[in-house]
């Protein structure tokens, strides 16, 4: 089992993973856009029954973890979503609310509760203030239970398709990865009603940097389910779909912000969409990425979308039109103030492309993951493509990336390497293990820092070069 990438993910995201994952009370918010794609579901109106209604010992609250029946227990004991509300009572949250000059403390502010505890929005004031109040609960991800609570354990229900379960009973189709990731993203990336912007980050909220496969593998997160709908190539499929779905959510948020930008009080450009560490680093020689990167940007301009789009190309699968659109969007966003409407227009086109791609990837996963999963050779090819994508054609430098991009490429290769073991452990190339483990260490933030202080881009480059060389020569003939 490869666990190396988990620690890194904790470093980049754990503070922010402390409980965020839900869907708004009306699920329509998220799925209004796009037209007729496979991930669009029409949910019935239904009300919430509360997490406790799932907690019967004979249903979801038996002891243990992962095992079917122990979901509620796992959530309470080892899922940070459970504690998403209580963190709002901690001193850092109080400080954030003060700096943002919120009218109410964090645990009463809609801005915070939207993600941290949607059910608390309607809870009586007497209940608030208690650290035991659950944060993101069952129904925030699985849908309001009114219509499925008494039906979902019956045999008839189990025979329904996931679309039927969703549209007739309001059970969210979490087994549809393209839906699931976008649901995670509604908080972990942001959407029209929820976002973590640069003002909030400056006030102390951790940066959001969502990468699906990394998140559900986080050491501090224990899954309460098994991926029974997918085959051994789950990890590789989840990475692809996760990348496109996250990029789709990110660009939808950009569009939303661009359209809102007319009112001057709304921040535009939104600095949270740019590479944090392009600006936030000590300007000392030796720690700069510049010498090891071939960049097509204007020096000193703002690098946009470095987290959500740096590995979008290989995930999209070399569809040139989409790649061009992404590049054009990045170029626009380098100096985005001229005309936000243009950004919104471009972004909308991109969403259409992403949706089509998502539909394609999800259909393929549904049809093949269990019956014809990716073979070891496919996985090997993907790793090779990702390694090549990060570097220039001659392999001497990185191509347009910094810590964000390097980390995304690393996570992508790690996900595939993991998948390779599941698909065919015996053929997995052992030469990749060490550079991946080393990268994990090098990319990690040091203690007491929220940025890659003291990292060594030249050394990181060397490891990527090794990965590139080894994967372009699968049989180790050299």
């Amino acid at each position, binding site marked *: 089992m490869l666990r190396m990438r988990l620690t890194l993910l904790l470093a980049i995201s754990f503070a922010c993973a402390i409980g965020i994952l839900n869907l708004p009370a009306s699920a329509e918010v998220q799925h209004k856009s796009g037209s007729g794609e496979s991930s669009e579901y029409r949910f019935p109106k239904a009300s919430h029954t509360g997490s406790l209604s799932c907690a019967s010992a004979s249903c979801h609250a038996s002891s243990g973890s992962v095992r079917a029946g122990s979901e509620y227990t796992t959530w309470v004991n080892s899922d940070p979503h459970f504690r998403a509300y209580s963190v709002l009572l901690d001193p850092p949250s109080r400080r954030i609310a003060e700096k943002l000059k919120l009218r109410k403390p964090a645990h009463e502010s809609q801005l915070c509760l939207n993600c941290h505890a949607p059910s608390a929005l309607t809870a009586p004031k007497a209940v608030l203030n208690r650290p035991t109040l659950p944060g993101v609960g069952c129904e925030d991800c699985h849908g309001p239970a009114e219509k499925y609570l008494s039906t979902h354990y019956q045999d008839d229900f189990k025979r329904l398709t996931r679309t039927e379960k969703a549209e007739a009973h309001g059970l969210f189709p979490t087994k549809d990865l393209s839906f699931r990731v976008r649901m995670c993203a509604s908080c972990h990336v942001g959407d029209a009603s929820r976002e973590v912007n640069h003002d909030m980050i400056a006030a102390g909220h951790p940066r959001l940097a969502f990468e699906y496969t990394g998140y559900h593998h986080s050491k501090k997160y224990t899954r309460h389910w098994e991926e029974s709908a997918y085959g051994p190539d789950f990890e590789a499929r989840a990475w692809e779909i996760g990348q496109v779905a996250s990029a789709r959510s990110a660009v939808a948020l950009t569009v939303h912000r661009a359209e809102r930008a007319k009112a001057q009080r709304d921040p535009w450009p939104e600095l949270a969409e740019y590479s944090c560490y392009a600006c936030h680093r000590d300007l000392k020689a030796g720690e700069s990425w510049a010498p090891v990167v071939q960049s097509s940007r204007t020096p000193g301009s703002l690098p946009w979308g470095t987290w959500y789009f740096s590995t979008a190309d290989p995930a999209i699968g070399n569809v040139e039109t989409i790649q061009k659109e992404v590049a054009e969007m990045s170029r626009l966003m380098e100096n985005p103030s*001229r005309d936000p409407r243009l950004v919104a227009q471009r972004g909308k086109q991109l969403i259409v492309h992403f949706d089509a791609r998502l539909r394609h990837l999800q259909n393929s996963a549904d049809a093949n993951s269990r019956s014809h999963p990716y073979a070891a050779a496919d996985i090997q090819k993907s790793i090779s493509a990702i390694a090549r994508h990060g570097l220039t054609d001659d392999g001497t430098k990185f191509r347009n990336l910094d810590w964000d991009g390097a980390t995304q490429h690393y996570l992508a290769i790690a996900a595939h390497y993991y998948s390779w073991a599941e698909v065919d452990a015996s053929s997995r190339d052992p030469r990749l293990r060490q550079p991946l483990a080393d990268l994990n260490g090098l990319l990690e933030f040091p203690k*007491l820092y929220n940025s890659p202080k003291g990292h060594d881009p030249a050394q990181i480059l060397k490891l990527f070069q090794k990965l590139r060389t080894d994967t372009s020569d699968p049989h180790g003939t050299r």
Partner: protein
Amino acid sequence: MKPFFVRMFAALAISASLLASIAWIEGPQGNAQEPKQPAVNGNFESLSAIHCIGCHGGPDTPAYKAYSQKEGARPPRTDFILLTEYHTWKNDDIHSEAHKNIEPKLSADGKPANLAGKMQEILSKSPARVGKDYHVDSAAECLTCHAVDRRPGPVSSPALAAGDRFNRETGVSCEACHGLVSEEWIGQHIQRGWREQKPEAKLKSGQIDLRDPHTKAMKCASCHIGNKEEGKFVTHEMYAAGHPPLPPFELVTYSRDQPRHFIANRDNKALKAMEAKLQANFHYRPDEMQDTHDFAVGTLAAFEATMKLLAEDAKSTAESGNLLDFAHFDCFACHHDLKIENESRKPRPGVVPGRPVMRPWATETLQVVMEPGAKKDDGGKAKIELKTLMTRLTDSFNVRPFGDPNSVAKEATALAKWCEQAKADILRVKYTREESINLYRGLAKHLSTLRTDGVYLDHDTAQQMAWGLVVIQEELSGLKKESPALDQVVRLRLRGTERETVEKRLTSRYEQIYGFKRDSFLDAADGFLKAFDPK
């Protein structure tokens, strides 16, 4: 074109023969003819610094010998003017390296071997320059500050680089600050009546009135802060390509460490011996602490230059629809590693967290300089106005990330205008010993407020304040004050005695900036203040 040294010797010979028959040593009173040329900057044909060397070239030149050692001259001629100016500039003043420092060097394998080489490599790959033949040592936007500009004006078209516009041979030499040397000036300034002429008359023949601290500070600031009308602006793109960050500015410190190639007014025996009417031509104010006065004027000028640059650039930004150039912002508000302990730091007053802030150093000591003090007659009106206008400027930066260029332009213009009145206010103050002590104590008080406020304080602001403290304390005590503790936190001298490469200076500056600790600074400043109690 003849090589530089050939022309230099030719010039030396001319100057020497000129001196032999020079009018103002023996001859009749020079006639103070009104020069014909209008006093428009840039209308003079530059004759280049080589024409200055003959007389100002130092002890080894014949002119120096002929003039300074003239028998019977009492007091010695060099009481007023040193005649070693060129020598000092050439040997001790890094302005003489200004062009050399932007000449790219490449190593044998074609890789950049110095900062200029690195900047050239990065800038020529920038999308706007790809495919163009770009050289930092001949690009107009570099030469406006790294050479002598014969036709000062905006860098409208960088493609029309250099050509005849710039004299690149001598870096930032005499003419860059004193004005372009015209035949008229050369002829006239060696006439006996020259010193009696008013600065305005001298300006008409091209000589800029650098004896006026405000004019001088604005001249320094045109490069050391920026001046868009003269095409001088270090953009964020240049910084990103490697240009060292411009340090804060303090007039007396900059003059002292240049080092001075002239006699400071307080040491100028000839000036002191003049009648009061003539002394005014040189802005000499007897019975005043000149350094303290210059510090106050220089502080205002630095702010004025900052506001003018900001206003100019914000105006063109508003037209183009771009973001305000990041060079206007506090570099180190963004450029630092994200320490978790910083999260509990108090934000600066009036600043919205997450919205980049303007470079703050030019505003901090200005508040103290504008304290009512001797300006009691206006009841501190100027200071109150400053506060109101600054709040409005801060708000226009807060509106959205990187500010709203339209309102930034408007507020910065208002502040630049405020500076005109403020200048008159400062000039009304007589910086007697008592008044200097007031200002000194004002700075001390401001520092103790900073301690109790607990708000963010950046290295550059601290450094500019420390420079002011040192300048005033040295003048009050009459002693050169060494303060290793304070010097360790913020370098008190602009550079050491040894000449170091740009790269080395840059590295040590970054060490200072990133090693800066607010509390260590306040402690060291406390110690510095305690070591001397002015009476």
